């Protein structure tokens, strides 16, 4: 379990934007994962995607790590942002764009 936690922490530290998905960005296996990917594609930003269907330990581990029972899950600069609903809401009100820009500047 601690290995899984380390792996997640490493992922979210290494990449500015990390999406834990059912399926891949190209072939999402769930409409909610697809809708989440779509928000970031529309912003034209790069992101790191983890397909939790390929790793049952990560699937369980990320849920415990965030205390969040569903997939997808979005991290920006190491911080848990939320799932599909929150991502869509932040995209629609312009906050997501700001977060990606501002967070990008602070990290750069």
């Amino acid at each position, binding site marked *: 379990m601690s290995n899984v936690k380390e792996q997640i922490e490493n992922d979210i530290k290494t990449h500015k934007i990390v999406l834990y998905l059912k399926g891949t960005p190209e072939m999402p296996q769930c409409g909610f994962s697809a809708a989440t990917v779509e928000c970031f594609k529309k912003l034209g930003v790069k992101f790191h995607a983890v397909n939790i269907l390929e790793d049952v330990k990560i699937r369980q581990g990320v849920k415990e790590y965030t205390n969040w029972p*569903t997939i997808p899950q979005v991290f920006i600069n190491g911080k848990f942002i939320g799932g599909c609903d929150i991502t869509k809401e932040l995209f629609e009100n312009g906050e997501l764009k700001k977060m990606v820009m501002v967070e990008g500047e602070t990290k750069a």
Partner: protein
Amino acid sequence: MLNPEQIEKAIVNALPGAAVKVMDTTGTSDHFDAIVVWNGFEGKSLVEQHQLVMTPLKDAFDGPLHALALKTYTPEKWKQLKARLR
């Protein structure tokens, strides 16, 4: 199998006094839409608000519940939203 009333009950039990509406949008008893208005959301981030609603449903998410499309509002925010829609 789940029905909207069971989910509403679980949420209200965890968030006393919350106004909760759950709808089975697909008719398949596994995808639901929910609106939750609660004064306990005051001062909490969106993530924290959603966590408060989802945590009591944790076990259901490991079983029959696939998705809950969620909107959370403080009573103040809900009032503003209703005014805008009027």
